[in-house]
């Protein structure tokens, strides 16, 4: 089976979608970041330059991985997990790890800063897909199937939460669960885990009332406009005035220090302000296209590993996009997840493009 599939051209819809989103991202990062870059770093192009650098690096990774047969990736899974684990620990070593705004998420290597947690997304997806596609693993049995995966994920989850970086931790947990789900974890196990999780969630909420308030503030941001509701209100103040056609590229007002993180977590709001509903609907449609083609790739993958890997990669990107847009539109609580391929993201963009490379490679072996 391994050598048998016929190699075809990659899925050009995925390629086209990703390249388009990447281009939109670069333009929007520049537009959204210019003002704060000028103010904070006296350099209008600061974020643009970084975005272009990481995009080029990522495209390089994508090109390489789209030509690297995906099943060979299994060899690297264990090494990748160990290296990632070490990097996540290194974040806490002074001198290597970089602390920004009270969070230790970054490490600096040779002048470049990157987030090891971005690698974790890829590593966990690879590991989960590889493990659950093993012939000797019965997914129906909890101790064989879901448990080992959840245990490994739990370690990484805990390390990332310690940084703290709730958004990335949720994305990793979500993508892992998607693969476990797709792999066929029985519904009763899912239900049982949910039943265990609920009391824990209830305890967390009850012990610190502000958490619940913050969590629910998206329902009525104006109840506390200067604290918990601030991000969402500012986001809506960008989307609303955008209207149908937007105020015009580069002409956002909300990027003038009203909306925090206009170039990363809330870039979609600035996009909505400058390009209107036309812009937001287009970007959402592009993500839909990517999800559709990603799942199609998974469905048509020649083996279980390919199926689960493609589902994991697509799920990872799609989940992040939907959560981010959900936050920006005030539909779900603020989590701190950026918009894949669009937000200024550094290493996150790099690893996203790398995983797209893997997806493209899987699409080359699609069964007809």
């Amino acid at each position, binding site marked *: 089976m391994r050598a048998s599939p016929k190699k075809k051209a990659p899925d050009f819809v995925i390629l086209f979608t990703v390249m388009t989103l990447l281009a939109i991202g670069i333009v929007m990062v520049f537009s959204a970041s210019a*003002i704060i870059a000028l103010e904070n770093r006296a350099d209008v192009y600061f974020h643009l330059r970084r975005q272009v650098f990481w995009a080029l690096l990522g495209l390089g990774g994508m090109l390489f991985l789209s030509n690297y047969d995906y099943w060979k990736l299994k060899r690297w899974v264990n090494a990748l997990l160990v290296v990632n684990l070490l990097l996540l620990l290194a974040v806490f070593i002074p001198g290597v790890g970089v602390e920004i705004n009270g969070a230790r998420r970054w490490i600096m290597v040779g002048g470049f800063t990157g987030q090891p947690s971005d690698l974790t997304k890829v590593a966990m997806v690879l590991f989960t897909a590889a493990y*659950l*596609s093993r*012939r*000797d*693993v*019965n*997914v129906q049995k909890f101790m064989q199937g879901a448990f080992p995966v959840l245990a490994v994920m739990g370690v990484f989850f805990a390390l990332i939460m310690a940084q703290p970086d709730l958004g990335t931790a949720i994305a990793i947990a979500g993508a892992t669960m*998607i693969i476990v*789900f*797709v*792999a*066929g974890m029985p519904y009763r196990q899912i239900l049982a885990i949910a039943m265990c999780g609920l009391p824990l969630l209830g305890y967390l909420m009850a012990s610190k009332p502000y958490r619940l308030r913050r969590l629910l503030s998206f329902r009525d941001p104006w109840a506390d406009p200067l604290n918990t509701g601030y991000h969402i209100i500012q986001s*809506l*103040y*960008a*989307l*609303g*005035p*955008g*209207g*149908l056609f937007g105020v015009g590229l580069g002409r956002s*007002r*909300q990027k*003038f*220090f*009203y*909306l925090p993180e206009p170039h990363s977590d809330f870039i979609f709001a600035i996009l*909505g302000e400058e390009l*209107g*509903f036309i812009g*937001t*609907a287009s970007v*959402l449609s592009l*993500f*839909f296209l990517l*999800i*559709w083609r990603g*799942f199609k790739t*998974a*469905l048509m993958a020649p083996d*279980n590993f390919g*199926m*689960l890997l493609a*589902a994991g990669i697509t*799920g990872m990107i*799609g*989940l992040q996009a*939907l959560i981010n*847009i*959900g936050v920006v*539109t*005030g*539909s779900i609580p603020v989590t701190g997840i950026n918009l894949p391929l669009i937000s200024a993201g550094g290493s996150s963009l790099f690893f996203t493009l790398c995983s797209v490379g893997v997806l493209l490679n899987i699409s080359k072996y699609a069964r007809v």
Partner: protein
Amino acid sequence: MSKAAVSGIIIKRRLMLLFVVMAATVLALLMRLFYIQLVIAGELQAKAWEQWNRSIPARSPRGSIYDRKERLLAGSASAQSVIALPPQIQDKEEAARLLAPLLEMEESRVLELISRRSATVYLKRLVDEETAFAVRKLNIRGIAFSQETRRFYPHGSLASQLLGFVGIDEGLSGLEHFYELVLKGRDGRIEFESDGRGRRIPQGVQSYIQPKDGNDLLLTIDQTIQYIVEREMERVMLSSKPKGIITIAVDPRTGEILAIAGKPDFDPNRFADFPSERWKLSPVTNTFEPGSTFKLVTLAAALEEGKFNAREGFFCRGAITVAGRSIGCWTRGRGGHGAISFEKVVLGSCNPGFITIGQRIGSEKLLSYIRAFGFGVKSGIDVPGESTGIIFTEKQFGPVEAATTSFGQGVSVTPLQQAMAVAAIANGGYLMKPYVVKQVRDSEGNVLEKREPQVVRRVLSGETAREVTRIMELVVTEGSGINAYIEGYRIAGKTGTAQKVGPGGVYIGGEYILSFVGFAPAEDPQILIYVAVDAPQSGPQWGSQTSAPMFRRMMEDILKYLNIPSAKTPVNEAPRMVEVPDLMRLSLEEASDVLETSGLLVKFIGSGSTILNQTPKGGARVPLHTQILVYLGGEAAGEEVTVPDLSGKSMREAGEILGWLGLRMNFSGSGIARSQSPAPGTRVPANSVVSVEFRNPGGP
């Protein structure tokens, strides 16, 4: 594939399921975006605008107030306010430390203001030039100035109760308050888009909404007449120390108020330094019992109804019985006026006489005349706080009420009502609506509104009005108004001495309101003055001695100022020389009787109640309106006495006056007294020596 391996079928089924869930989520988000960006977009846009737009107020210059000859009474000078733009101030503590002493504010207060989370805050409104300059010199980033105006009144307290004053942003009393909407104009503002840190967005929209200037008021007030009136009021305030004085000067032909003032008043440039009772325009807000000046209403009504015959005889016993109650005349003490004509009833202000006249008119008719003259309702003058006054209703108006009302007791009127009622006599019978604003003009001088005289109703026939005027002229030439006589002019007038009514309607013993109402020239009345002096604390409490001379001094200057020629055909003239009556050993009450129509002014020395001495002596002939000195004693020997003013006195008179007080004179020169030491008003022990220098009139 072994059984243990993942089933491809399950994977595919689950993939489809997951895709459906994600696709549904995409759809939900699309709808959400549609809702936000297209459905509630306008709402959000409006709120966002609120957040983006900041504005600095640009205040409109307030309109000015001018007198009838366009002389400035209230204007606005440009002043600056210090504004802080907190987001732009870098070192807030340093800024607060530097600004606090210049702005005369607490450092902590300044720091609190410049640390606020808003784009602009006022640090201090309306600072003076030097302060603004000093703050400018500090050159602190984020400290700006806003051009504003500060109200000023070039003549200080002149017409202050009428003009009122302006607080920080609005007129709080007087015309400034009444005409607030006319004077204020509309504020403009500078609007700009600001960023999240309160700074102007460079390419953002900026707009300047120009302030609209306030409109100007042109008053009916004549600044010179107002000045003359207030000068005389101040003089009496000093010499007689009354609780207050009220004056209204009005053109009886039009109802235009030429001058209106109440004392004590205030300086609107620093209104807060004065008690608030002084802010209101007392001639319009105060009510009091009018007393004898109200008798003119009774007289006019009787004449109009044909119930008054000047030559008919009347006998005053000093009291009259009405419905079983005895009501006295002010001459009760000496047994009444005796047998007099009805003309003399008016000239002598005889109460039983007026009660009789009132009874002849009938209470119903009398009440309707009182109403027709404008009593009991607001005149409608364009100033705030006008009082209504109180008159009896038909039900309450029994014989006793009608009797007291006939001579001006038991009613409550405003000085303005009294003045306008007499103006109706002066102008031939028309009750006019009084007003103070002649024109409203915009800042370019275009007339926006012009007030014309307004007749409320006709009250009397011209014939009746002329007859009342004739009798009022007699009051001035030979009656109690003789001290208002101005040589060469025909003056019509009436004195009034009303006992003050305290709270609860009880008469306050020994406190009177001395009033005088008169107009000139009687043949063609152009100006009417009403004065009322509230409870003088020194000098005689008789209208003839206080309010009549005050009226004369005002009227004399106003007639000169208005270039009104003296009468060509004087009908009646007061004598030029009068004989000084012998007042020795008379009580004050008796003396008031004798002096009322004497044409002499009297000055008291001492504080007793019986006249112990006088100068000039009885029988001497002196010019009309000469001041005679009357010694009342009452100061025990060995006590301190007040040195009298001897200027203008002959050596004999000066020696006599000093003798009364137990002082000795050391004189030099001859003729009349020119200077003295100690100065008048100084308190010295009895037996002190007063040096007086005499000089011959016309000599060096």
